[in-house]
């Protein structure tokens, strides 16, 4: 019998080895160009900065202590605030749009989705640049306001914090609408019919059935918007005019201007840790919702 056992596990081994030519190249590539870089950033955060840039290999926690400096703490908080504001606004204006699309006839649904996603596929910098044309003192929004007689003097819009928020909303709104749409359109239409049949008004149906069931989609959308908004440094620079310094700008500057890599690495780590924490919470929350929703299937 031991001979048979080894024959069987030999076959299992051969099966595992067969995976090597398929998995090997990708895993090696990922290890060198994804795992190693992230590990490097993590390690650098605990070392001193070199005199001429680079890293001096002396262990220190100074980089994290510096984060408590009100100057930097303010930047981190403002980043969270601005990304949060952009996420909230995107959710508010994205939800009705996603709901509308999910209730269109099938043919129009695809078209509406493409219409929403198309701007997202156009170049990020160009879309940012377009807002400069719109928000400028002599720009098209001010021209419109003056032509309509609403204002007489140009309103300063470009290079303000609200402008940065608008830019972020514009940039990531499709990322909010897509998961919202996915969760809304996958809802069983019979659920709303059942709620109506049981005597609920359309608003009550929305509040008690549609809205709670779309919560995981909304959460995913919020993460999709918040994560890139938080690390963005282009919009604060181009639309905020460099006056609004967010954590992304700070990290970029540590690496490319101040040449303080360890501090930049520490900033990036803290930002990533915060975002990963959000991701984990989101996964927990949506799992809780979906497990409460569907009974576990018996094993076949």
């Amino acid at each position, binding site marked *: 019998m031991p001979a048979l056992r080894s024959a069987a596990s030999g*076959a299992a081994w051969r099966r595992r080895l067969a995976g090597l030519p398929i998995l090997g190249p990708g895993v090696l590539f990922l290890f060198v160009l994804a795992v190693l870089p992230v590990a490097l950033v993590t390690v650098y955060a605990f070392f001193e900065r070199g005199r001429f840039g680079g890293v001096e290999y002396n262990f220190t926690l100074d980089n994290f202590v510096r984060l408590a400096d009100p100057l930097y703490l303010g930047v981190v908080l403002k980043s969270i605030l601005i990304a949060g504001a952009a996420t909230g606004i995107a959710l508010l204006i994205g939800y009705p749009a996603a709901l509308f699309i999910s209730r269109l006839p099938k043919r129009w649904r695809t078209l509406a989705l493409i219409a929403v996603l198309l701007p997202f596929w156009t170049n990020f910098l160009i879309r940012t640049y377009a807002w400069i044309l719109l928000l400028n003192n002599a720009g098209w929004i001010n021209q419109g306001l003056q032509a309509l007689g609403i204002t007489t003097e140009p309103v300063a819009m470009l290079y303000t914090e609200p402008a940065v928020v608008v830019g972020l909303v514009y940039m990531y709104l499709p990322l909010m609408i897509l998961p919202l749409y996915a969760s809304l359109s996958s809802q069983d239409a019979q659920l709303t019919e059942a709620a109506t049949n049981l005597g609920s008004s359309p608003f009550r149906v929305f509040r008690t059935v549609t809205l709670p069931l779309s919560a995981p989609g909304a959460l995913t959308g919020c993460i999709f918007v918040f994560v890139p908004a938080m690390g963005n440094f282009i919009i604060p620079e181009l639309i905020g005019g460099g006056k609004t310094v967010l954590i992304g700008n700070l990290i970029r500057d540590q690496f490319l201007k101040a040449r303080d890599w360890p501090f930049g690495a520490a900033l990036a780590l803290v930002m990533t840790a915060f975002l990963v924490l959000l991701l984990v919470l989101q996964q927990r929350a949506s799992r809780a919702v979906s497990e409460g929703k569907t009974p576990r299937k*018996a094993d076949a």
Partner: protein
Amino acid sequence: MTYGPDTVSASQPLLQLRSLSHSYGSVQALHGIDLDIAGNEFFALLGPSGCGKSTLLRSIAGFETPAHGEILLDGEPLTALPAHRRPVNMMFQSYALFPHLSVEKNVAYGLEAEGRGKAEVRRRVGEALETIGLTKFAKRRPGQLSGGQRQRVALARAIVKRPRLLLLDEPLSALDRKVRAEMQLELKRLQHEAGMTFVVVTHDQEEAMSMADRVAVLNAGRLEQVDTPVALYAAPRTRFVADFIGTANLLDGTAAAGGILLDNGLVIAADHTLPAGTAATAVVRPEDVALAGAGTGTLSGTVVDTFFLGGTSTVSVQVPGLSAPFTCTVRAVQVPQRGSQVGLVIDAARTVAVEDDRAASRPGAAQETVSS
């Protein structure tokens, strides 16, 4: 011990399973299965979902590597052969027709993999399609066929290679009632004509009983009984088999001389060789019970329900001291009124006594008395 067909015990069985065991992590799926299947047999593996029957089938096909034990085909070990070298073909539960290939390409797939010549492939595919009556649909894609047609294609694709052994995984489960009856006959005919050995996995006892020459009943990774359908029904060897096959009144008690002693003090007469005092169950089929006047018969009770079934009726009788109503089948003309008192005459010669092994093997199993 090995279950083998009585008739062919002299010659070598086609397929032999020797102490086959397998587990998924901590879950033991198969416990030392020993089984022989003869050539030209229509064999069924029957059991509830999760009993290990699919694992067994997939081990024979080569998609699972059993942790322990051996599979022999014509006396040659199969275990070390990869799936694509085994002279065994399978009809999948989902049919697994290649959606990107036409019907004829699907059927030709296995022959092309063997490297057969073009002419031979065309001829044999043509024959196979004719056998299943789908010649007209050769150029269609699987997506354009009905469920029954898809099943025929899956069948043709498996038998065109003339395997030593054809494995069928829940072959009829996806079909509606009417098509299922047709396919059942068709499978029997094909097996007969092609002279092939069929091993069917199913959870549907009617399907297994009506098609198979022999049936193996599996429960929780163990073989409960391997027998002909008639023997399984008339002489179940375990409580599980009695419960799983057909409808039975299961009266739990302890073995006593000449029968089973129930908790309420009554004795149900049955021949048995169980040691006195062991937990045992009397198995009484509903058709082996006759109704009699109140006060006569083995048991008596009150009629709680009657179900008219055409030629016969089923009568439910509440017997004091029994946890569930007793079921018996009577000719439709003799149906008593609900609420009336009746006596039950049990045919002792047809009553079977089995050991009540639930406490040992399945702790926490539900206490069912009647099941269909």
